């Protein structure tokens, strides 16, 4: 594993411009992240926090209204923002891949599974139909789909949700990318299938030395799957660091609240805490720190100035003026 990080985001900002230039939404606001080969990074946040926009920014597949306005992105040392559209297109699927949330909607209902899995191979690696098809078969095997030859000829609607998500996974790893971004891949799966799927992801990752960015709103999964985690709120990363640290000693009040809101067996109902208030409307953000209207530790400064990113410990950063006090010990 080389020392150079696989993916580096440096104060990346993506804004949506709507209403004919009158309104700007800062969907991603000065996000900095680092990811090394083979690592798993979890990105956590409520809906609207900017997670998906961040993923699309990395791949530079933003809708027309959105633009990357500032910051830098480097993948394997190469400047992603300097790449031409054709170069970017060649990177997608081949070096950076992405899985979307709804597997049924992601697969084209009119084409066979085999066709869709073989497609990226044919496009990126210029091989014959036959060998691409054989590769597709091997890929399906590696995501543990039985009766491969038959499945290759079937259509998406003939399969179960779990199987479809595996197929989407197979498509993603088909060209051996170095980075896989998974946007809420288990949200639409049954709970029983989720665990299986996550296990599969981990295996694939280990086998191929794949780096994984796992976007989710479920902290439980993060605890299981990820090496490090970044917590997003209103487009900013409010806390980031190794998973263990964040769970045991969350510095930002939002992270604290998230961690504490995970229900635990054995504790009575009085222990359930929720976070008061609603996530902010990105169009009209409050002044200062975006979280201050809901923060239990708010001080005056929070209302005026948005906090900078401060190092709490090595590799553990947070954006807060207050920093939560010493944590209670967790069982």
């Amino acid at each position: 594993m080389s020392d150079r990080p696989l993916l580096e985001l440096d104060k990346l900002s993506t804004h949506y411009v709507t209403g004919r230039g009158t309104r700007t939404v800062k969907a991603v606001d000065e996000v900095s992240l680092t990811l090394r080969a083979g690592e798993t990074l979890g990105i956590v946040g409520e809906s609207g926090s900017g997670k998906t926009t961040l993923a699309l920014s990395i791949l530079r597949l933003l809708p027309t209204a959105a633009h990357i306005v500032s910051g830098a992105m480097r993948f394997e040392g190469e400047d992603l923002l300097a790449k031409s559209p054709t170069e970017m297109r060649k990177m997608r699927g081949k070096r950076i891949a992405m899985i979307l949330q709804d597997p049924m909607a992601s697969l084209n209902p009119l084409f066979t599974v085999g066709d869709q899995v073989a497609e990226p191979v044919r496009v990126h690696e210029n091989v014959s139909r036959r060998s691409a098809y054989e590769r597709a078969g091997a890929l399906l095997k590696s995501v543990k789909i039985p009766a491969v030859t038959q499945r290759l000829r079937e259509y998406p609607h003939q399969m179960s949700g779990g199987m479809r998500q595996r197929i989407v996974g197979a498509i993603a790893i088909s060209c051996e990318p170095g980075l896989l971004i998974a946007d809420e891949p288990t949200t639409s799966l049954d709970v029983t299938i989720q665990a299986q799927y996550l296990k599969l992801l981990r295996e694939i990752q280990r086998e191929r030395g794949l780096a994984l960015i796992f976007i989710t709103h479920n902290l439980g999964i993060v605890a299981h799957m990820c090496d490090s985690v970044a917590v997003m709120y209103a487009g900013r990363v409010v806390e980031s660091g190794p998973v263990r640290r964040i769970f045991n000693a969350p510095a930002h009040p939002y992270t604290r609240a998230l961690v504490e809101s995970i229900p635990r067996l054995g504790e009575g109902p009085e222990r359930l805490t929720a976070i008061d208030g609603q996530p902010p409307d990105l169009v009209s953000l409050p002044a200062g720190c975006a979280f201050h209207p809901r923060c239990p530790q708010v001080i005056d400064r929070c209302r005026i100035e948005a906090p900078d990113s401060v190092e709490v410990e090595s590799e553990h950063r947070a954006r807060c003026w207050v920093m939560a006090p010493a944590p209670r010990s967790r069982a």
Partner: protein
Amino acid sequence: MSVNAPAPSRAAGLTVAWRLAAFHVEGMPVIPILILVVLALLAIFADFVAPHNPEVGTLSQRFRPPAWVAGGTTENLLGTDHIGRDVLSRLIFGARVSMLVGFTAVLFAGFVGTVLGILAGYLGGWVDQVIMRVTDAWLALPALMFAIFLAAIVGPSEFNIVIILGLVYWTRYARVVRGEVLSLKERDFVRLAIVAGCSKWTIMRRHILPNVLNTAIVLATLMLGVVIVTEAALSFLGVGVPPPKPAWGLMLADGKKGLMAGYWWLTVFPGVCIVLMVLAANLLGDWLRVKLDPQLRQL
């Protein structure tokens, strides 16, 4: 590059023209309304605006071309037809015919269709079944064919045409209104009214009707264009407005007689009028549809 849609290329020329056509003032589309208002004014004040009598012509002046072509005079700005009648006057009076027939037919069809649609949607049961079966059967008949058939039986006249068009087109209203009513039935304010003990008729009149009115209006504007074209087609075929009344469709039929000889003005001008009116109705209908009821986009 984008996941959702490719970036739009620079627009020019035609898009400018489009922007002009779709020009809005305070949200209202200016041009269609302007056209319709002008046509309405012409229709109302035809007697004062038209330079000549539309139904009587001088044979010695037949087939005069428009004023700007060799052989034309300023007396007949747009030329004369095969009996020597002034084209411009006929066009102006024709606006009256088109507007009258168009609006009346649409109102008639709308009234019948809305009432039946409400009854079918709200009362359900066998009333619904009967009305729906009849609607389906009548919808299977192409409007034009049905209208021709009816005209063949009762004979052409302005009054008959209105009735015929109404009979042909009410089914479209009934279908759509019924759908609206079906979803309205589930809404809370209707349920409250039922619980409060209002009779069926009261509910239909005071709660359901005002709410489907929006849909009905949008549908009416959209139908206006269709009705006008159908009326023109009927007149063209000889089963619409009977001569010597000046209907645009009839003028086209007369115009055909001079077509092979190159008397183009008898065909072009009436057609342009029809297109203008239909265009205005369509644009207005589109705008109304978006404004009044976004759900109707599928229409």
